């Protein structure tokens, strides 16, 4: 299955107009995933941890210079709004890490093959294509989007549409600050946004997740088309309109007030 996964993923480059096919052969070092491609995959995956180290540096910079945000979306107003990292967040992260490791070890020791695919125990054979090619489970929603485009759109081939949509479905997150211009940062105080999030985006992601792991046949194709349609409508059409017409609920004065219900400083501010 990994062989076929590699074939599908590298096949995405073949969708690029004009240069696609030669580009794919150049990147693979052959016509199908082979020794050359495997070597390149190894070097790429050896490189990735160093990329992650770079992102960790960015994370530390972001934490210390712009500072961290919070679930209420309200800026820190006074010392009473914050707590020191030690012991408060060490204690909080400590037990959640324990809870995560518990579930993780439950999978490792008692359900080791649950998230895998039986075909991964079959030796790679380029001459025998599996009936259903599915990627790892965390790619399922995006794989469903890739497969949702079944018709050419004017002069754009369906394959290219699917590839653009699959990468677009992730790229769109990076444009959220421009798509969602609401002055209120937390969904907690935005009733209309919350409705679309919980009754629109979340069910649609669940459907995409399920359909991505299912075989490419009806009714899964039609279902993933409906869900993918909502996915793009949500981020690119609904969010910009919602943020323009929505009337947000009143914001709390400070984080302290949001958490504890009242804030001494807030009373002073209104009295003064």
């Amino acid at each position: 299955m990994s062989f076929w996964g590699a074939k599908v993923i590298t096949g995405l480059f073949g969708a690029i107009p004009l240069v696609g096919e030669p580009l794919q052969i150049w990147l693979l070092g052959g016509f199908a995933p082979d020794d050359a491609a495997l070597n390149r995959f190894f070097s790429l995956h050896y490189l990735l941890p160093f990329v992650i180290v770079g992102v960790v540096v960015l994370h530390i910079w972001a934490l210390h210079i712009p500072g961290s945000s919070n679930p209420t979306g309200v800026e820190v107003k006074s010392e009473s709004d914050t707590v020191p990292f030690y012991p408060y967040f060490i204690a909080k992260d400590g037990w959640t890490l324990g809870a995560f490791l518990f579930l993780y070890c439950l999978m490792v020791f008692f359900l080791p093959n649950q998230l895998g695919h039986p075909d991964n125990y079959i030796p790679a054979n380029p001459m025998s294509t599996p009936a259903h090619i599915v990627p790892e489970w965390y790619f399922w929603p995006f794989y469903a989007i890739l497969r949702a485009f079944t018709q050419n759109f004017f002069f754009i081939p369906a394959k290219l549409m699917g590839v653009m949509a699959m990468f677009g479905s992730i790229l769109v997150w990076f444009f959220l600050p421009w798509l969602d211009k609401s002055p209120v940062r937390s969904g907690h105080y935005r009733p209309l946004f919350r409705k679309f999030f919980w009754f629109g985006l979340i069910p649609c992601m669940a459907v995409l997740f399920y359909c991505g792991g299912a075989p490419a046949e009806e009714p899964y194709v039609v279902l993933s088309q409906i869900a993918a349609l909502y996915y793009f409508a949500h981020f690119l059409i609904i969010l910009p309109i919602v943020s323009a017409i929505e009337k947000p609920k009143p914001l709390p004065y400070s984080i302290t007030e949001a958490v504890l219900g009242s804030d001494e400083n807030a009373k002073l501010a209104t009295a003064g």
Partner: protein
Amino acid sequence: MARIISILVGLFFTVALAWSLLVGLFNFELPHTVEHEFHKAPKELHLASDGPFGKFDRQQLQRGFQVYKEVCSACHSLSHVAFRDLTALGYSDAEVKAIAAGFQVPGVDPATGETNTRPGMPTDYFPKPFANDIAARAANNNAIPPDLSLMTKARHEGPAYVYSLLTGFQNPPANLPEANRPGQGLHYNPYFANLNLAMAPPLTSEGQVQYGEGNPKPTVDQMAKDVTAFLVWTAEPKLEKRKQTGWPVLGFLLFATVLGFLAFRNIWADKKKKA
């Protein structure tokens, strides 16, 4: 401006999807193939190694090995298993040596350098029944008998599938379309993905394999169960160790997490108090 661009991009993707959806709905048809109609999900199978406390039944593994040796090994390789691994089934070193010596493995004549065969040693792996894939195809109606080492992990519901396949051979139902009837050298089995497979029923009659004293009667059902249990072992010889290790690990993590949670509650107590 950004809003207009985003809505235009959004319309581009949604209209393209709507077009695919429209065509999809217009031609909507649930897949209805003969395989969908006649293929059966595997039968239920319970083995001693199932469940979080599961342990191998050594006696059953030995019977299963005997079935593999006397029946399956004629066509199927077991290339990831070495003879010395069989000590895990409860065989003594001397017994393993005797078992290994009963197999002919590929070797080299020390005098001439020509390839030949020699009796196996405990360090050897199970030999392949065919010299190469072409020989395997030629002898088996153009189908290569797959290696069985990982078979119970390489199929959905592996153990139940292997057991169902071994006991599922039957005459094709009367309403099976002509095109799906088993052709020359094929055999009908509703547990196989496309209903007809090249393997002839391997376990056909009671007593085909003679079990020693103190073992259950070697019915077809029993032999299929035993060899399935053996193949669960070959696919994961460390299964017992994995489950046994899991319990103390989970126990420790549960203890540490509860302790961490209580510490968290304690530390945050004064911060969560209403003013």
